[in-house]
């Protein structure tokens, strides 16, 4: 394990070097909120944030992504034939991604890169990324990453983990991709590596202690699905829901999409857009029947997917990294921690 030290004085210079080596993304404050944006040459990411408003999942799965295109011009030999749009998967580096959000990419990858299906669009975009994480020293009160399989200093899915150490950053270089980026930025290994690892360990422990909330998940796997599905509490849980898609859109682990065709003049495109299980259209059949016709059905689906079906299918914990965005941004205060508690502690067999 290599650790580099980067003084904050040298930080702008490193950003400048990196922006020459690859496309750079980082947190930027736009009006009220932080979000991940392309950093212009020499632009310094703003690390004065806890969590971005929208998760960085759009870097791999854009809200709207054109996949194919075709022409309707009958004079062209290839008319009406959908053709894949060439993608630029040139290297991109994300500076300052939170460990939970990086973890989320690996979680979502289980869906887009399974034994049976490989999603070339998702995988192409994912593989172009190098993730330089920023450890959390001040987690939000809505964070519960440590009980969702992640943590404020989690290294899962990261190529480099940076830790703020006063007037410098300590950068733990985790993968070979991380080494390449460190070399391009001019970050060199610190001589006193041993003491630094311990120091990071201490800061990690201190930060984890600041996470005050958790979810208990140990009984979810052993519960029978049908009684949990039929549990009485769903009426209470779903009452306040207004079926907006905020929770699913801000979530780093919600991956559902919808495919749409659009045409304009002689050009047609096939794209995919984020979709949400909160929407009535999500499961509307061509016949007009909707198996999830009420909001209770839809709210239950979101939580059952994240906290039961995913758990059963992948045997790898819950489909959630505990970033807390859905809690802090839900317009009616539906709290996944409360729902998880109800499910885990339910008296159903």
């Amino acid at each position, binding site marked *: 394990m290599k650790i580099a030290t980067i003084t904050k004085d040298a930080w702008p210079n490193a950003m400048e070097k990196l922006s020459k080596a690859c496309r750079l993304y980082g947190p930027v404050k736009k009006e*009220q909120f932080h979000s991940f944006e392309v950093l212009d040459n020499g632009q310094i990411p703003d690390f004065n944030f806890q969590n971005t408003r929208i998760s960085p999942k759009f870097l791999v799965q854009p809200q709207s992504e054109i996949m194919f295109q075709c022409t309707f011009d009958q004079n062209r030999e290839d008319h009406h034939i959908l053709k894949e749009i060439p993608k630029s998967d040139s290297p991109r580096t994300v500076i300052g991604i939170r460990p939970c959000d990086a973890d989320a990419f690996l979680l979502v990858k289980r869906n887009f890169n399974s034994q049976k299906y490989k999603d070339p669009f998702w995988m192409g975009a994912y593989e172009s990324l190098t993730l330089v994480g920023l450890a959390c020293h001040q987690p939000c*009160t*809505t964070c519960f990453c440590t009980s969702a399989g992640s943590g404020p200093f989690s290294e899962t899915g990261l190529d480099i983990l940076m830790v703020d150490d006063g007037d410098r950053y300590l950068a733990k270089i985790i993968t070979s991709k991380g080494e390449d980026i460190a070399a391009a930025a001019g970050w060199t290994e610190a001589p006193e590596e041993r003491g630094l690892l311990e120091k990071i360990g201490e800061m990690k422990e201190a930060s984890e202690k600041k996470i005050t909330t958790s979810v208990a998940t140990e009984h979810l796997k052993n519960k029978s699905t049908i009684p949990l599905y039929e549990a009485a509490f769903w009426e209470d849980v779903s*009452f*306040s829901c207004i079926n907006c898609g*905020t929770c699913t859109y801000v979530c780093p682990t919600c991956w559902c999409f919808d495919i749409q065709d659009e045409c304009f003049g002689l050009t047609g495109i096939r794209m995919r857009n984020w979709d949400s299980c909160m929407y*009535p259209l999500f499961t509307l059949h061509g016949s007009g029947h909707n198996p999830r016709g009420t909001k209770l059905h839809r709210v239950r689906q979101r939580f059952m997917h994240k906290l039961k079906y995913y758990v059963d299918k992948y045997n790898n914990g819950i489909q959630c990294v505990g970033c807390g965005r859905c809690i802090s941004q839900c*317009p*009616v205060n539906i709290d996944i921690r409360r729902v998880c508690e109800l499910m885990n502690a339910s008296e159903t067999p």
Partner: protein
Amino acid sequence: MTEYTEKIREISKKLLIDKSVDLIIGFRKGTVPMMNEPCFIKHPDEVGRLVWDSHCGINLANYLPNRKERIGILAKGCDSRNIAIHIVENKIKRNQIKIIGIPCRGMLDKRKIASSVSGEIVEAVEDKATVKVSGNGFSTSFDKQEMLQENCKVCKHRNPVIYDELVAEPVPEQQDVDPYEDVRRIEGLSDSEKRKFFEDLISECIRCYACRNACPLCYCPTCFVDESRPQWVGKSIEPTDTLTFHFLRAYHCAGRCTDCGACERACPVGIRVRQFTKKLNKDCFDLYGWEAGLTIDERPPLDTYRPQDPNDFIK
């Protein structure tokens, strides 16, 4: 307004015990600071869960349409106006509901408060005139009047317009407020400047439809953006489609919007959605002397015709 809580519980208990309603729709204490969650109470023993403070901005009228039970519902001025609209539009029957009226002093804008401090707010405590927020290494008090939601600042109907019970004496209505100062500014722009204004306004929109779904007026069985046969509006975040959604939604609310602020409250990316609806509120007022939801005896202006209706737009 926290002193309302006891009275709300008392009235709710009475209504449940004498079986004049099947359930009460109100708020329970939220799990995060400055938030409460809409909830229903069916048993008199559970009324202790009901709370009231300056973070009850969600418009509860949104939970009424098409319900079959007999309902007791808490209603601020704006909620009561939306209930009146539901009654006029046959979404709920007047004799099916007991309105527990709440004289309102305005709801707090949690985003504004959050952006006025550096650091996450862990606790918010309010008294009559101030709200004190604290977090890691800070503790600040704000004058509540300064931190009201934008719509509450210009509200002229703080007291419920229809009710069966009232939790306290009516509060004085705000005088000398100018609700349309911003609309007049936009009206003064050139066509291209207006276009730019609205394009900038929605530039952050993620089409999650939280504004629509938080709005009590948006109860259509299928919203026009969700129609698929035919599909009227594209589903991507193409600005033309996004603008179409916002403009059409606003027009659907013309003469019906009570400026309750639910849309802005719900928007996860902070879009000032009321900039769309307020112009139509102003037009309805200027042209027809109409404010939505003040009566259950009259249909909204775009729903009726009078020979003397202004027709200056016909050139």
